[in-house]
């Protein structure tokens, strides 16, 4: 091209093209500025990504942690609810010093007597009004046989009210009755696990199982859920709870007696425990924590050693709720810190961007950009950065609980509030930490800015 010629005038005519009055919010302006912001962020891809990492981690962490703690607290509450909110659980526990000497294996054969007694229960019943029921249980570890199949399990001798007290339901058949209790009947209710172990193919109902030399008629099967993990260290039970079978209390007492003997390194040891477990049901749930304290003091008076444990599910539930709250506060604090760090990261990069683009700011100012146009431009850019970070964080934060659930089997619950809250906070962080760099950009002297190299 040798010579540039201007096209004839007339094409320059601005007739009919009037500027729109630019007062108030203008969507076109907003969109254009947003486009410019996206372009600028895009042109520094890696830098932008590293910048938003803090926000990503913060948002993902808060959602994931809330999901885990929400899930844990849900599980705990479910568990304690299953134990019964109006129940107090008593358990016999082998006293610590006895445990110690029997472990060491020295000394003469020991005969240990410990734990809860029927007299304890009577004393409790007599001194505290408002106890609706007490379900006492004996738990003995036995080998249980069906022909050639056998399982080592806890045989629980208990009362007819046991399933009701624990919100524990039958899958099939029935629990034993008052008359069977009276008759010391040889009837048994299996837990789901034991039923499957001993009767892999056929229906156990109506069949018999053998414990020691006695045969017991299977009359029911319990659901597998609903046991607590609490008190696993109780006397006679080392296994986890679900592997249990239930026979009438009277049958347990007459068939197995109160004393168990076992071979130890130092000789023979015998343990005598009258009751392994008692569930005390209170009429009024509101008083359950106080009643628990009274029972504790009664037992303290009656026992020389601490050979019992007391658990109040409602108190544990309250504790679980408190600890869940504590978890959430910790999660919130960690998230807050990482969001703060993320925000500082954004501010840092925005300041760098403002310095880098000083010339551009000068050009824009010369071409008619007002201070607030420049503020808007950098503010929107900061919000895009933190918003994109927040969005990635939300996606990760929702994905991580799924992964945790899939690999560790933990219950996780993502409440809809968590992602919304986390995302809003991240956008807010963008505004807060974007304000200072934006104002700095807008306050630049146009002449100085244009001279900037």
């Amino acid at each position, binding site marked *: 091209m040798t010579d540039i010629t201007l096209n004839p005038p007339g094409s320059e005519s601005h007739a009919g093209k009037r500027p729109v009055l630019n007062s108030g919010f203008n969507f076109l302006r907003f969109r254009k500025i947003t486009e410019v912001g996206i372009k600028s962020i895009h042109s520094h891809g890696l830098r932008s990504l590293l910048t938003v990492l803090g926000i990503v981690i913060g948002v993902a962490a808060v959602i994931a942690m809330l999901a885990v703690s929400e899930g844990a607290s849900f599980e705990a509450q479910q568990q304690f609810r299953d134990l019964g909110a109006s129940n107090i659980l008593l358990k016999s526990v082998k006293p610590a010093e006895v445990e110690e000497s029997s472990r060491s294996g020295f000394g003469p054969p020991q005969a240990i007597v410990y734990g809860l007694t029927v007299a304890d229960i009577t004393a409790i019943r007599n001194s505290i009004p408002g106890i609706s029921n007490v379900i006492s249980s004996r738990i003995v570890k036995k080998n249980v046989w069906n022909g050639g199949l056998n399982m080592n399990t806890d045989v629980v001798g208990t009362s007819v009210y046991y399933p009701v007290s624990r919100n524990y339901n039958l899958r099939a058949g029935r629990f034993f009755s008052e008359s069977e209790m009276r008759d010391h009947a040889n009837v048994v209710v299996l837990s789901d696990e034991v039923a499957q172990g001993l009767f892999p193919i056929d229906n156990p109902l109506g069949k018999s199982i053998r414990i020691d030399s006695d045969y017991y008629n299977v009359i029911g099967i319990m659901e597998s859920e609903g046991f607590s993990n609490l008190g696993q260290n109780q006397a006679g039970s080392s296994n986890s709870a679900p592997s249990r079978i239930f026979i009438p209390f009277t049958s347990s007492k007459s068939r197995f007696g109160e004393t168990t003997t076992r071979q130890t390194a130092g000789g023979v040891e015998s343990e005598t425990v009258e009751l392994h477990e008692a569930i005390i049901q209170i009429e009024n749930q509101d008083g359950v924590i106080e009643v628990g304290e009274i029972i504790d003091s009664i037992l303290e008076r009656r026992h020389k050693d601490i050979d019992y444990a007391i658990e109040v599910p409602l108190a544990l539930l309250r504790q679980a709720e408190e600890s869940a709250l504590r978890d959430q506060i910790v999660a919130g604090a960690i998230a807050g810190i990482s969001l703060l760090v993320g925000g500082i990261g954004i501010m840092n990069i925005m300041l760098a961007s403002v310095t880098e683009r000083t010339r551009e700011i000068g050009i824009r100012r010369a071409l008619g950009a007002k*201070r607030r146009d420049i503020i808007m431009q950098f503010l929107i850019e900061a919000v895009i950065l933190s918003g994109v970070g927040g969005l990635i964080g939300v996606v990760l934060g929702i994905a991580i609980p799924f992964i945790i659930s899939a690999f560790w089997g933990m219950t996780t619950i993502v409440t809809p509030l968590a992602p919304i809250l986390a995302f809003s906070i991240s956008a807010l962080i963008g505004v807060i930490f974007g304000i200072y760099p934006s104002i700095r950009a807008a306050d630049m002297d146009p002449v100085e800015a244009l001279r900037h190299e």
Partner: protein
Amino acid sequence: MLETNLSTSTNSDSAVTAGREVVASLDAIRKTYFMGALAVEVLHGISLDFYQGDYISIMGPSGCGKSTLMNILGCLDQPTEGNYFLGDEDTSKMEDDELSTIRGARLGFIFQSYNLIQQLNVLENIEMPLFYQGYSEADSHEIAMGLAARVGLQDRVDHKPFELSGGQQQRVAIARALAVDPLIILADEPTGNLDSKSGAEILNLFDELHDQGKTLIMVTHSDELAERSQRWVRLRDGLVESDDRHNP
């Protein structure tokens, strides 16, 4: 009203300017810079009238106050004393927002180093002043396309500045300066970064703008460049040394 100021202006040929509108008027402009306790007066009282269709070169040695005067003419800086009328508006007491508006609406800038925005393509660069004036998207597009064609870059509207030669970039800058149909076009050493051929093309464009009745004010060192204009203003030590008209 402004015609009465003519006596304060220098030895412009009143026969040439008769009947023409004054588009910009500097009235006893002083500019003092403060560097800590030190006050340095750069302009010592400059009065000039610029008429519709003038093609002016502002010349002078380094440090004579050319740049300061240019910044004041461009409403990028405010005089310490005196009044600067652009059209019928006194800009010397304007707030920052008003100055931004008047820069965007009344002035077109052409810089030595083009000053295009690198992330934006040719069309978007030309549209930018229109955007800040709040033109609709369709109008901006139409105006910018027309101007791109006018400077011979209709085939390059999608290109980014770094994909263009210096001369082409300066033509984009000229198109951008014309976008809002400004009262005055201010050019600061417009050919300073260009080879002589590209420089000549730019000057040809200026001639055409002048022929179309645009008002051009150009700051330059170069007498050769100034040759093309019809009014030479020489500054020395912050004062107008000479103000001559001639018709090349």
